[in-house]
């Protein structure tokens, strides 16, 4: 038994009230489905049913798009821009006021540690709304012409890994530019989007400006293929992204895609080793590795491989896996049974292909979906675990000898979303950054986000940028 056992310190659930059943948020109010059905959303940490939500049908999607169109034409686009700012600021403040409630709800529905939803997700949500609130009345200074116009109705489909944050990334710039939106949250994590719908009501946002339709893949398809949509924004898997790109190509519809990744986290021999190890841990075990820009390939220079790996293993031994609501939890639950099965399958393939697997001693809870933090050493570029996105807490470790080899290996992937470079040598950081084909290159840090910084991918990681001034382009007619 450890000398210093941390007593469980769970965040109270009583702060959040979850309804038994949720309708669809269309035209400013919740309404029952017309042609859909109901399904249950569970807590992945306990498999407990949290609420019943609607799987919206095509007629529901049509109602939502119609409401969004009406709001676009009659209220939102014609509103003085400063008024749009006012609403966005109001939403941002409401998110801050309800931060604890939203964090608990997010951790319950998603399985992520409360420390992350409290310290990362929700503060970034508020920051995004504040940031884009500031742009709403300054669009003529964005560099996209003297009076850039909105596009119309945006159909937005978001993933389950950062439910409310991805909603913010989508809705804040769309609204700032004068568009209205129909947003579909992921089927396993609809609750914070529905809580956001309530925030829109409390902010007195005109009806129809934001519409939330819950559901699964078919609902998403109905939304992105709806003829009344002017723009599609999608964050999710590369496979679905390709389907959406094909659908949008048929009718020439604008779209932006933020898809998968297989980021290289590159550690040079002169790196600050202790901080690099923190960066490796944060790169792959943050949010259980359910991060499109996760540093899932560690490229470590051969001369420091032993030191880095010893240090990494020791550090992994201190990771605390368990109840997502416990304030001391570092690694939470895998979001769904399906995702857990996918992670297990790829991890098993890694072993079959000859890489060696290691996890720290770590007791997994009996109920819910769990996977221990895992590293694979002896991985080569030819292994599937070095090429395919696992989207879980699984790190593939490769080595390199020279900066040129690091670049070659890092870029040798169909993806190109992010990369990390760890070295105390500034010139090497710049040399690497100019050669890495990745949308984001972090230097001596990893998984850092800021609303002012654009985010997006190369190659199969998608196209278009979210965040910053660049993020406005996707919602303006430029």
């Amino acid at each position: 038994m450890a000398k210093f056992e941390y007593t469980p310190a769970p965040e109270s659930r009583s702060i959040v009230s979850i309804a038994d059943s949720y309708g669809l948020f269309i035209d400013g109010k919740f309404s029952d489905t017309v042609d859909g059905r109901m399904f249950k959303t569970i807590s992945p940490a306990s498999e407990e049913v949290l609420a019943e939500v609607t799987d919206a049908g095509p007629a529901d999607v049509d109602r939502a798009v119609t409401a969004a169109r009406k709001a676009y034409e009659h209220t939102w686009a014609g509103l003085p821009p400063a008024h749009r700012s006012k609403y966005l600021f109001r939403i941002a403040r409401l998110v801050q006021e309800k931060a604890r409630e939203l964090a608990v709800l997010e951790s319950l529905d998603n399985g992520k540690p409360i420390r992350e939803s409290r310290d990362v997700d929700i503060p970034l949500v508020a920051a995004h709304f504040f940031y884009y609130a500031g742009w709403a009345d300054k669009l003529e200074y964005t560099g996209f012409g003297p009076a850039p116009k909105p596009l119309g109705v945006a159909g937005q489909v978001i993933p389950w890994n950062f439910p409310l944050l991805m909603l913010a990334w989508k809705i804040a710039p769309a609204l700032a530019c004068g568009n209205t939106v129909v947003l579909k949250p992921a089927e396993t994590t609809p609750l914070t989007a529905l809580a956001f719908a309530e925030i829109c009501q409390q902010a007195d946002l005109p009806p129809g400006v934001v519409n939330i339709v819950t559901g699964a893949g078919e609902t998403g398809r109905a939304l992105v293929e709806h003829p009344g949509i002017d723009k599609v924004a999608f964050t999710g898997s590369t496979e679905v992204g390709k389907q959406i790109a094909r659908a949008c190509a048929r009718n020439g519809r604008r779209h932006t895609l933020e898809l998968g990744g297989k980021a290289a986290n590159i550690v040079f021999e002169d790196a600050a080793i202790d901080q690099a190890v923190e960066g490796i841990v944060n790169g792959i075990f943050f949010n259980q590795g359910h991060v499109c820009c996760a540093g899932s390939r560690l490229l470590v220079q051969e001369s420091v491989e032993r030191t880095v790996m010893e240090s990494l293993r020791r550090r992994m031994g201190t990771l605390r896996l368990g109840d997502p609501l416990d304030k001391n939890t570092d690694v939470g639950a895998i979001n769904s049974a399906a995702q857990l099965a996918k992670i297990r399958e790829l991890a098993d393939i890694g072993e079959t292909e000859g890489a060696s697997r290691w996890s720290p001693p770590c007791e997994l809870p009996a109920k819910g979906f769990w996977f221990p933090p895992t590293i694979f050493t002896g991985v080569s570029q030819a292994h599937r675990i070095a090429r395919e996105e696992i989207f879980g807490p699984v790190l593939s470790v490769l080595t390199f000898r020279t900066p040129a080899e690091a670049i070659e290996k890092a870029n040798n992937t169909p993806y190109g979303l992010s990369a990390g470079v760890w070295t105390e040598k500034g010139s090497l950081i710049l040399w690497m950054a100019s050669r890495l084909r990745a949308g984001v290159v972090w230097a001596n840090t990893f998984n850092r986000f800021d609303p002012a910084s654009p985010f997006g991918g190369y190659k199969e990681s998608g196209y278009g940028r979210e965040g910053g001034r660049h993020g406005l382009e996707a919602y303006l007619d430029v």
Partner: protein
Amino acid sequence: MSVSAIAGSDLRDFLHGLPGVDRVGAEARAAMLASRSIKTTAKQWAIDMAISMIDLTTLEGQDTPGKVRALCAKAKQPDPADPTAPKVAAVCVYPDLAQVAATELKGSGIHVASVATSFPSGRASMEVKLADVKSAVAAGADEVDMVIDRGAFLAGNYDLVFSEIVEVKQACGPADQGGAHLKVILETGELLTYDNVRRASWLAMLAGADFIKTSTGKVSPAATLPVTMVMLEAVRDYREAHGRQVGVKPAGGIRTSKDAIRYLVLVNETAGEDWLDPAWFRLGASSLLNDLLMQRTKLATGRYSGPDYFTLD
């Protein structure tokens, strides 16, 4: 690597060959660990552990034998209302008062720590510094808290700093014949960078320090979480390389139970639980003790009592 092998021009190469410390990353990690939530039984354990790790300190020009005697009484029985409260690890005084403390603490198991080497600036000749150490040891100090020559360190004169530590260690007496334990104060508030803190930590350990200590308490900033974390990493790595365990003592500015518990979390998740022991981790403090006692009583009774219910010494 033996001490003699590292001394000389190799010392500089070695210290500058240590991995750097990234300021942003180190501070972020320390801040994350500071957000750990330690409640109920864990808090109870941590408060008692923290009390037993205190070097109860008075280092003022106005110190008198009476003041030191009072402090020693407090050290032996921190909470007269609750005899289950543990005693502290040591009482830390100036050399001229070490004898008073030694007399008062005889047989109590509480160590007598004395600052020496022209504390706090260390600006004196080596003869004076060594005489200071010898007088402290002769007066009954079994722990000596020396200061390094920060000027020499910042000027890159590592050999000088190294040899001073070696000489002071000798002046403490042979370890196997009850020589005093040597704590080396780096005065991290004057070293300014974490790279320097790491180098100074290694330098002190290579020269024979039994403990490395952050600060004199006379320079601001004194102990901080990230500085202590860098030092804990150093003792962890040093033990791995050399097989010898060295203790760590943050001192100055640690005033509340919350602060103290954060340091214990830092120890637990950086160097590991081997250091969660008064033999390997100390907190240099004075007012901290009463806050710990107040929190301890609150946990036991469910009520806060006012500061007048705890003795001021």
